[in-house]
Every structure is written in structure tokens, then in C-alpha cells.
């Protein structure tokens, strides 16, 4: 039976409805996605486990969203969901809907590489809490998605397994570090996916690929089994093509976990209940510091259009200031690498992953780490090691941690004046593959609007807010993202504001343009 290709165009909520109504089976849904992955993603399809081709064997039109596709397990799980549904069992709301998982979350029995040579072939002996929750909600896991190595990057070009391409223009980046998860959803290779966000790694790729991506309040989604980049910032969150889908996935993965000491004990906010309440009377704050210099004109135009729409919808637009936001990126690029330098010390060739043989343990460690880590990871380990080292700690790590306090205070003050804050998600639209790889600092500037919220731990999402041309291509129409930020533990407010705008903008267009991935 030929798979129904239109199934891959449906949102998760629509798929869930059809599954509930038994118009379609979970197996058919899984099959349709697998077929599309086989056709467009550059994997060696066939057999139980499909593996991504080597970087040099990938075609220019291969999205390369997946590193590993668990075809047999997906079919088996889907069939099981169908069986249980047929038997009249009460199933979870998204039961049978496929999902892709960023390769930074552990999956028992399924390779987890973090986009690094260091973990090539590593098969975790345990599941991340998020992995468990997806399984418990009967989402059908299709596989593991590509990413910047150890989640360090903003373009997914730092993957040891080759870059992921943006479905809107296969010559451009999908953003990062969760570029594989974003491209999978944007390219209709999965209706839902999980990413992780440390300084913007969900929001920026969501913006660059024209989908919805949310970073929940820090501590509301368990980090157990999330291979740490920067522990005080890392947070897993949903990617979807609609705000409602993202909220549904968010609701599934959030909740207290006693295995994570930083997991908040409060019950996670109900992000679904108030979703459709609209923005009438809502105070929407425009952050003065997150605009202007460095933001592309097309991005600013799209943002201005958003303001008009919100005003028309009855929201009250207020201007707010985050006086220390200008220092956020500097603080972030000290704190995150400092934590990373320690978190990544465990990759030493002793217990798992790569080993490069040498005469002594010390030389073996150093040679293994030299061979196993890519340039960006080494850069950040070096920055972090230096920032924590004797004589530099106070000026770098400690001072950055104080700036972090000031930024959190700025947000608290801004949220006195506004219910949610908005800004462009990224200062630019998607850039060309290879364009920024040799300029680390320019690459870091991609995170300028997302990093302040990361440091404060507040919930923030990005949703599509129209398109804009690229600086190098005035005819291009590439997605622009709007960032919506809410106070700590008020995740429902950002979904509510996002949903209202999404309704006003109309249904999201699939990737289009001369270099886009074809979408049925």
C-alpha cells in the first residue's frame, strides 16, 4: 500500500483527531513519514535501523535532519498503538503521532551521539525522562536528529556528521543547535520534535525554519538524560508547526522529576487551558534593547507588522527596557562555556565513547579529547577553562554570574509593566551554509535576542511572523521569527499571545521558493 503523502502535511492535532476517529492508523502515519525521510533526508533506508549517510555522501538536496532513524521500532510502536486503540483502550491525546528527538537526549538502546565523534556508536544504558514521557504519551519516536556538536552552535554546521539544510532553502542553515529537529518539522519529516535550548537553540532554529519552538521555564522539563552543555541554562522543549501543537507537546514533557535537583516542585503551568483567550487587554512589552543595530531591515519590518496586528487585536503595546540586556551575550559566553568545560570533562576515553590509544592514561585522555571534539567545542572548553581558572574566576565567571542577577532583576521589573515581552527571535534570517563558520563571534551574535531570557530562566518561544529577504538575496522570502517571553512559570501567557497572532496571520505556509524542499 502506498503511503498517503498528505499525512505528512497535517499538524499533530489534526493527526491525533484522525487517529482517534480511526480514519487513519498510527502505522500509516509512521509509514508516510518514514517514506518521506527515505526520499529526502539522505539516510540509508532499509532494514530496522536507518543511519544517515556520511557527510561527503550526502546530496545537496538531502535535508539531513536525522542521524539515526528507528524504523522498525517506530512501526512496532505504531502497530501497538493501533492494536490498543482497536481494543478500546483509553489512549493519551497524542497517541500514535510521530516525534523526532534531538540526539542530545538519551534513548536506551538507541545510539546517542550529541553530534560528536566523541560519542560515535555510544548506546546509552538508560532513557532520559523526556524520552520516557514521550513513550508514556505513546508518541511514536522516528529517530534522533542532527545538532551542533554538544549543542554548541547556531547553524548545525558544527555537527561531526555534516550540516543539516534549511527546508526553505537547501543552501542555507536551519539555525542551531537544534537544527535537525527544526528542519525535520519544517520539512514535514516529522509533525513534532524535541529540541534543547541553552541560549536560543530551540527559538533561533524555529525562527529560521518558519515553525514554532518553545523553551519552557527553566526547571519545568527534567534535564535527566539531557547530555549537559550548560546545566543552569539547558532546557528541552517542543517544535511544531502550530502553536497549539507545541503547547500539547510542552504539556506532555513538562512536570516535576525527583531525579533532577533543579526541577521545580510547582506543578507545571497549564499551557492548554488559556490558549484561546486572545490578547485583548494583554499588555505586550516591546524590549527597547532587542531591536535596532544589528537587526536586518526585513526582520524589523516583519516585527513592526506584528505590533500593528497585536494592537488591532486589542493588546496594549508598551515599551520596556532591560538595561543590562546589552551585557547578556557577554555573560552568556562566559557562564555557558564555564559550565561546559566541566560538564564535558567526563569524555575522556575511559567509560564510553571514543578512545585514542596512548602510553599513559593522561596522554590517552588528551589524545582522545583532541580527536573527539570539533573546533567549536574545543573553543568553548578553552574559554570556560580559562574563565574558571585561578586568577581569572572573579573577573569572568563571578562577574558574569552577577550580571545574570541584574538581568533577572531587569526582567522582573519589565514584567511589572507588561504581561509578556516580544522581540525578533533572531537578528537575521537564515544565512548561507559556510557563511559564518570562520567567524565565531559573528555566529554568537545570532543569540543576541534569545540569550537574555535564557539567563533569567523565563519561558520564551518563537513563532513564524512572516518572511523577509536575505541581505545577499533581495528576492528571497525567508521566515522571520517573533520571540514571545513570559514571566517565570507563566508559560501559558506566551502560548496565549502566540496563538492569537498565529490566528491573525493565517495558516503557516509550507517552505516555498526556488531552493526549497518540495512539499506535497
Amino acid at each position, binding site marked *: 500500500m502506498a503511503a498517503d503523502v498528505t499525512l505528512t502535511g497535517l499538524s499533530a492535532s489534526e493527526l491525533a483527531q484522525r487517529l482517534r476517529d480511526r480514519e487513519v492508523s498510527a502505522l500509516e502515519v509512521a509509514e508516510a513519514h518514514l517514506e518521506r525521510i527515505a526520499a529526502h533526508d539522505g539516510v540509508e533506508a532499509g532494514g530496522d535501523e536507518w543511519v544517515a549517510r556520511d557527510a561527503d555522501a550526502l546530496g545537496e538536496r538531502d535535508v539531513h535532519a536525522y542521524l539515526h532513524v528507528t524504523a522498525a521500532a517506530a512501526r512496532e510502536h505504531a502497530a501497538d498503538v493501533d492494536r490498543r486503540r482497536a481494543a478500546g483502550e483509553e489512549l493519551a491525546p497524542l497517541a500514535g503521532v510521530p516525534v523526532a528527538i534531538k540526539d542530545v537526549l538519551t534513548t536506551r538502546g538507541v545510539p546517542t551521539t550529541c553530534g560528536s565523534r566523541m560519542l560515535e556508536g555510544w548506546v546509552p544504558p538508560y532513557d532520559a525522562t523526556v524520552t520516557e514521557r514521550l513513550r508514556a504519551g505513546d508518541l511514536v519516536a522516528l529517530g534522533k536528529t542532527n545538532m551542533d556538536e554538544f549543542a554548541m552552535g547556531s547553524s548545525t554546521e558544527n555537527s561531526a556528521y555534516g550540516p543539516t539544510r534549511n527546508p526553505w532553502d537547501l543552501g542555507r542553515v536551519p539555525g542551531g543547535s537544534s537544527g535537525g529537529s527544526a528542519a525535520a518539522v519544517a520539512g514535514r519529516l516529522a509533525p513534532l520534535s524535541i529540541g534543547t535550548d541553552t541560549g536560543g537553540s530551540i527559538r533561533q532554529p524555529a525562527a529560521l525554519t518558519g515553525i514554532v519552538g518553545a523553551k519552557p521555564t527553566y526547571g519545568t522539563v527534567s534535564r535527566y538524560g539531557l547530555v549537559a552543555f550548560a546545566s543552569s541554562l539547558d532546557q528541552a522543549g517542543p517544535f511544531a508547526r502550530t502553536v497549539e501543537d507545541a503547547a500539547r507537546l510542552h504539556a506532555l514533557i513538562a512536570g516535576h522529576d525527583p531525579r533532577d535537583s533543579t526541577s*521545580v516542585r510547582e506543578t507545571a503551568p497549564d499551557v492548554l487551558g488559556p490558549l484561546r483567550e486572545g490578547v485583548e487587554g494583554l499588555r505586550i512589552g516591546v524590549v527597547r534593547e532587542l531591536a535596532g543595530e544589528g537587526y536586518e531591515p526585513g526582520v524589523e519590518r516583519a516585527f513592526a507588522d506584528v505590533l500593528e496586528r497585536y494592537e488591532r487585536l486589542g493588546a496594549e503595546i508598551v515599551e520596556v527596557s532591560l538595561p543590562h540586556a546589552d551585557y547578556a551575550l557577554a555573560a552568556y559566553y562566559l557562564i555557558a562555556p564555564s559550565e561546559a568545560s566541566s560538564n564535558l570533562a567526563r569524555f575522556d576515553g575511559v567509560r564510553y565513547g571514543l578512545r585514542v590509544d596512548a602510553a599513559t592514561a593522561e596522554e590517552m585522555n588528551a589524545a582522545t*579529547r583532541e580527536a573527539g571534539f570539533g573546533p567549536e567545542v574545543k573553543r568553548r572548553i578553552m574559554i570556560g577553562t580559562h574563565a574558571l581558572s585561578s586568577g581569572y574566576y572573579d573577573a*569572568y565567571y563571578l562577574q558574569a554570574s552577577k550580571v545574570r542577577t541584574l538581568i533577572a532583576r531587569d526582567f522582573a521589573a519589565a514584567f511589572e509593566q507588561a504581561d509578556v515581552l516580544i522581540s525578533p527571535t533572531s537578528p537575521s534570517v537564515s544565512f548561507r551554509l559556510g557563511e559564518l563558520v570562520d567567524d565565531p563571534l559573528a555566529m554568537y551574535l545570532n543569540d543576541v535576542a534569545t540569550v537574555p531570557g535564557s539567563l533569567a530562566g523565563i519561558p520564551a518561544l518563537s513563532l513564524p511572523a512572516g518572511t523577509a529577504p536575505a541581505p545577499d538575496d533581495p528576492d528571497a522570502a525567508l521566515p522571520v521569527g517573533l520571540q514571545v517571553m513570559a514571566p517565570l512559570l507563566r508559560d501559558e501567557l506566551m502560548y496565549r499571545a502566540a496563538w492569537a497572532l498565529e490566528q491573525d496571520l493565517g495558516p503557516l505556509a509550507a517552505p516555498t521558493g526556488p531552493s526549497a524542499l518540495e512539499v506535497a
Partner: protein
Amino acid sequence: MSLSPDEVRHVAGLARLALTDEEVAELAPQLSSILDYAEQVGEVAAEDVPASTHPFPLANVLRPDEPRPSLSREDVLAGAPEVEQDRFAVPRIVAEEG
């Protein structure tokens, strides 16, 4: 601040990275420019500001002293590059411990 190649090598030693000479030469200016940028944090007067390491002021997250099932030895050793006598094998250790 600018980092000299020797300083880069010192940091690489702490981070246990066997950088090549080319990498050291490449990293010295890159790290210097990143640190130059990051040094901006020093412009903020923050003497009386407490440092924060978390967005949430959580405290006393404790676990009852109750045993939980461990992993099987097979699972733990499965990923190891070299195993001998059910232990993780490493070449001769030269340095003394912490």
C-alpha cells in the same frame, strides 16, 4: 585580553586537550577576541550584587536514603573502550590523584 600561545597551551593542559601547534596558533587570536568581547561584563558595577547560578532559588532538594536498583554490570561496561577483570581498563597512570 589577549592570550599568548603559551597561555593557550597552559589552558589546554588544564582542559586535557592535546592541541596541535596549528590549533594553538589559530585559537590564540580567536580566544582573545572572544574574551575581549566577554570582558564587557566588567563594565557593570556589581560589587553589591549577589551572583546567581540558577533562575530559581530552590533549596534542600534531597533524596531519602533508600536503595534503588543499579545498572547491570554488562550495561555499565558495554560502552567501555577497554574492559579487563570486569573493570574499566586504562593505560598506566602517571600523575598522582587530586
